[in-house]
């Protein structure tokens, strides 16, 4: 009888130890998320010479639907909210993207005299230089709720705008692929404008 008790106590202790270990592991993992990023510690300074040739205005509609939300078991607040109805809201996000070239690595090797009158400038591969999402107007947000769910609050709207902005930035290579001919052509126009009155006939090409 005494042996049985001892075994049960050992088993229970082992289980408690394992649970504690699991929680310690979880807390170690989550502490990684709390690390400060560079931009949070000090403002980032860049001295650069980047040529913007093309500005692209994009629009994506945000369609937020609480019924599609995947919850973790700890999100009791959100799970409970969904028992009382569905929250949906819609609004447009406009994003401005600027494409161009990083001129900081441009050397004299990239500028070539083809003949006495023609100069050929080879630019690096075009890339995204800057981007900016529009400011949100609360009047642009349309709410479609069911049950007891209220309208989206500003915290949700800002978060949705930022999530969609991040999603669009992930697609920057595809967007650049579409507008690349325009980016290259505009580079020719700008450089010809700068050197246009000179003796040179200017040719501009991009690295592939």
């Amino acid at each position, binding site marked *: 009888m005494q042996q049985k008790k001892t075994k049960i106590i050992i088993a229970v202790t082992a289980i408690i130890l394992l649970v504690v270990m699991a929680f310690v592991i979880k807390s170690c*993992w989550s502490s990684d998320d709390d690390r400060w990023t560079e931009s949070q510690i000090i403002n980032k300074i860049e*001295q650069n010479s980047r040529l913007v040739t093309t500005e692209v205005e*994009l629009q994506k509609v945000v*369609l937020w639907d609480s019924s599609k939300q995947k919850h973790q078991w700890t999100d009791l607040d959100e799970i409970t909210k969904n028992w009382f109805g569905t929250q949906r809201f819609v609004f447009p996000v406009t994003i401005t993207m600027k494409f161009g070239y990083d001129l900081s690595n441009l050397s004299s090797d990239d500028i070539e005299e083809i003949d006495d009158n023609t100069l050929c400038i080879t630019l690096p591969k075009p890339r995204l230089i800057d981007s900016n999402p529009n400011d949100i107007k609360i009047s642009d947000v349309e709410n479609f709720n069911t049950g007891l769910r209220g309208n989206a609050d*500003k915290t949700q709207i800002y978060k949705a705008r930022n999530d969609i902005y991040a999603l669009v*930035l992930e*697609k920057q290579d595809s967007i650049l692929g579409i507008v690349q001919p325009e980016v290259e052509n505009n580079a020719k126009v700008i450089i010809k404008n700068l050197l246009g009155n000179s003796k040179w006939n200017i040719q501009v090409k991009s690295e592939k």
Partner: protein
Amino acid sequence: MKKTYIILSAIIAIFIVVICFMFCSNDEKKNSVYGDTAININKVELKGELYLYSEIIEDYAIERVSEKRIWPFPDKQHAQMLIKCKRMTYVLPLLSVKAEFNGSTAILTLPEPVIVESEQALNNVEPYLSDDDDYWNKKTGKVKSMVDKKISDRFAKSKKKETAMENAKNTLRALYESAGYTEVIFQ
């Protein structure tokens, strides 16, 4: 009997460990909450700008208001806070650069650099907080301009503008010298 206890304990322990690891690793993104809408290109236009000097600046502003109420109720205090992270850049409008040529000398007249702002995504931070969303509905204009002004004031310093202008001159000098001009004069 002994074996049964050991096996039972081992099964329970493994079950608990597996459950705990499932919860630990359940960091699935919640992006599926958004409808899969297309990205439309509204406009593509020529933009001749030379980016010269940038800083990423994060700042916040708090607006506090006291709501008057009929006696005997005390006035109610309200507050809202907005955090913004912006890339502030001094930019040279290249299409306004005037160039004249005299033999192997290029004479350039540069316009003043202008400030271009672009908002950056915040890292796991709720950008907006308020004590009463219904009260602050459509009253966010002031807090936005407060935080915009704080960030602009931190960036718009004459030393940074001088650095930007110096960078513009160096970049343009390199371009014109590569094009065969031995002397580049800035007016």
